[in-house]
């Protein structure tokens, strides 16, 4: 199309310019009961294929475990879903209608996709409470936040979460002074207050004691149903304790998918991931 055609098109009398149309918040359509479609996704870094024609469908309300060797591309997949990394080809749809690839990170987050990073990332110079407050489900606009006050409801929610993640006592401490494990919890807490529809959780129990691991498992199981949860974890005991359906990634594509038992006995999976004796 030449520039002339473009101009003509833009100038057409019946045309409404895109920047004039008000932003209608995209509505999530899960009528087919699938909340996340990942189709033919490929990502390469300097020629190295981190994701290779990956296909993945996640049902609404499901709790899906994603496992796979180190470097299989799990984190990269989350990066693509949340808009951090551009993919080379493929589609990622949130529900039936929302194409995630066209959206920026904040837009994706506002759609209700929350993420916990592999390496805990919290705002170290701010208090634990403030970290949670910023994550709360509310408008993210400038003018709103200039005047924003916590409603009683929101305050309650934060208190509730503080209790849940065991940082009640530390609520006014700077997040930077927390230990590694505490930061993990805080980050989970930040996810919880935001109440997203889809949670992407990268290695939540790394650095947690067995008991904490157990608690995390409980928490995640309880979240499923209302929320869709995708968990990446290498701790097989943990995975076993929560998993209904497990997807195994290998070299950027799906190697196996099924129940924990099926996967555990899959020869390929044993070969590349679990190791022979278990």
């Amino acid at each position, binding site marked *: 199309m030449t520039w002339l055609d473009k101009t003509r098109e833009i100038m057409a009398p019946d045309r409404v310019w895109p920047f004039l149309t008000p932003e209608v918040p995209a509505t999530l359509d899960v009528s087919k009961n699938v909340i996340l479609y990942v189709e033919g996704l490929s990502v390469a870094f300097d020629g190295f294929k981190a994701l290779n024609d990956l296909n993945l469908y996640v049902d609404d309300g499901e709790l899906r475990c994603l496992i796979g060797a180190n470097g299989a591309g799990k984190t990269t997949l989350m990066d693509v879903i*949340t808009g*951090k990394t551009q993919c080379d080809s493929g589609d990622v749809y949130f529900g039936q209608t929302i194409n995630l690839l066209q959206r*920026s*990170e*904040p*837009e994706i*987050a*506002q759609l209700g996709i*929350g*993420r916990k*990073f592999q390496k805990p*990332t*919290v*705002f*170290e*110079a*701010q208090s634990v409470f*403030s970290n949670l*407050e*910023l*994550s709360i489900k509310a408008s*993210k606009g*400038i003018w709103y*936040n*200039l*005047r*924003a006050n916590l409603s009683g409801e929101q305050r309650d929610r934060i208190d509730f979460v503080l209790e849940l993640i065991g940082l009640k006592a530390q609520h006014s401490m700077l997040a930077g002074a927390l230990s590694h494990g505490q930061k993990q919890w805080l980050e989970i807490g*930040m996810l919880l207050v*935001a109440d997203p529809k889809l949670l992407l959780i990268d290695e939540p129990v790394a650095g947690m004691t067995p008991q904490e691991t157990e608690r995390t498992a409980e928490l995640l199981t309880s979240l499923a149903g209302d929320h869709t949860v995708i968990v990446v974890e290498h701790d097989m005991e943990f995975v076993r304790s929560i998993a209904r359906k497990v997807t195994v990634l290998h070299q950027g594509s799906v190697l196996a998918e099924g129940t924990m038992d099926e996967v555990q006995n899959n020869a390929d999976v044993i070969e590349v991931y679990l190791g022979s004796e278990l």
Partner: protein
Amino acid sequence: MTKSNFLSWWSQARSTGNASFVFVVVLFGVAILASLGNLAVPESSIFHVSTYTISLLGKYLCFALLALSVDVIWGYCGILSLGHGAFFALGGYGIGMYLMRQIGDRGVYGNPTLPDFMVFLNWQELPWFWLGFDQFWFAILMAMLVPGILAFIFGWLAFRSRVTGVYLSIMTQALTYALMLAFFRNEMGFGGNNGLTDFKDILGFDLQSDATRVSLFVITALLLAAAYFTSRAIMASRFGRVLLSIRDGESRTRFLGFKTERYKVWLFVYSAILAAIAGVMYVPQVGIINPGEFSPLNSIEVVVWVAVGGRGTLYGAIVGAVLVNYAKTRFTAIFPEAWLFALGALFVYVTIFMPQGLIGWLQKSLTKFNNKTEVAS
């Protein structure tokens, strides 16, 4: 007042959440006393405040406002602008153009429309971008709008492309440097190297008169206080906390759903307008605006004031600006040949021994002091 006396008073002021109150009391105390001292007290009295002092104070306050604008973005959002002098100077040129037009036919060539520099460089008519500047409201509007729009365009481009850190700093430097070169060009129609000067009056008030000077000084103080409170309110709001988050982890902030580039652009424009206001107040008080104000070194100096005072506390920036400039005034007169040694050493000393600036150091001594008194009691 002994040191410990002062500290306890100060800590009280602070602990009751009144630091700002104290700040404003000091600011207005000085402003009112100085004004009275200049206008009401006869010159012979030892309480007389000379016009020289008034214009110095006025200048310091303008610089304080400029420092505040830098602190707002650097201290709270981590955007280090090495080019904020550009917005300051643009504001200054805005009001300068108005003042220039006010001269009317009282210029040396007596040309009623053309400023002197245009007459003797053979300009035939007023260039279009000078039109309207004979109106005060228009000039003020432009003095804030132009820097604001420039900041918007620059910020929008840069933040959207995620230019950050030193890249951004150096780009702001490039911006002000380019503007400096441009304004140096005589063809630009802003008086070239000489800039704009020889102002006569503002809104009909004689710029040389003491009353006008005092009024300008008081207005500057008011504006500074207003800017201080607005900024403080902004930083105390959730918006302010988003800014801190951006400073400490921009990408994480994005994953919480904040469109960080919008926040940054908004703040950048706000800060630019503050700087422009500082420029607007500065020019009538010092009587000249020229491209030297765009010099990157000037902008770097502003950053230095902020760092000396204490970045990330609003009054720190103000204290830093006033102190450094006061030191400069004194030093250039007391040891004209060696004052750069003193100033340079001051900067080095503050960075090493007061990493949080003067204010940070004060607060630290305070905590220590408080701890001690607590232990004692």
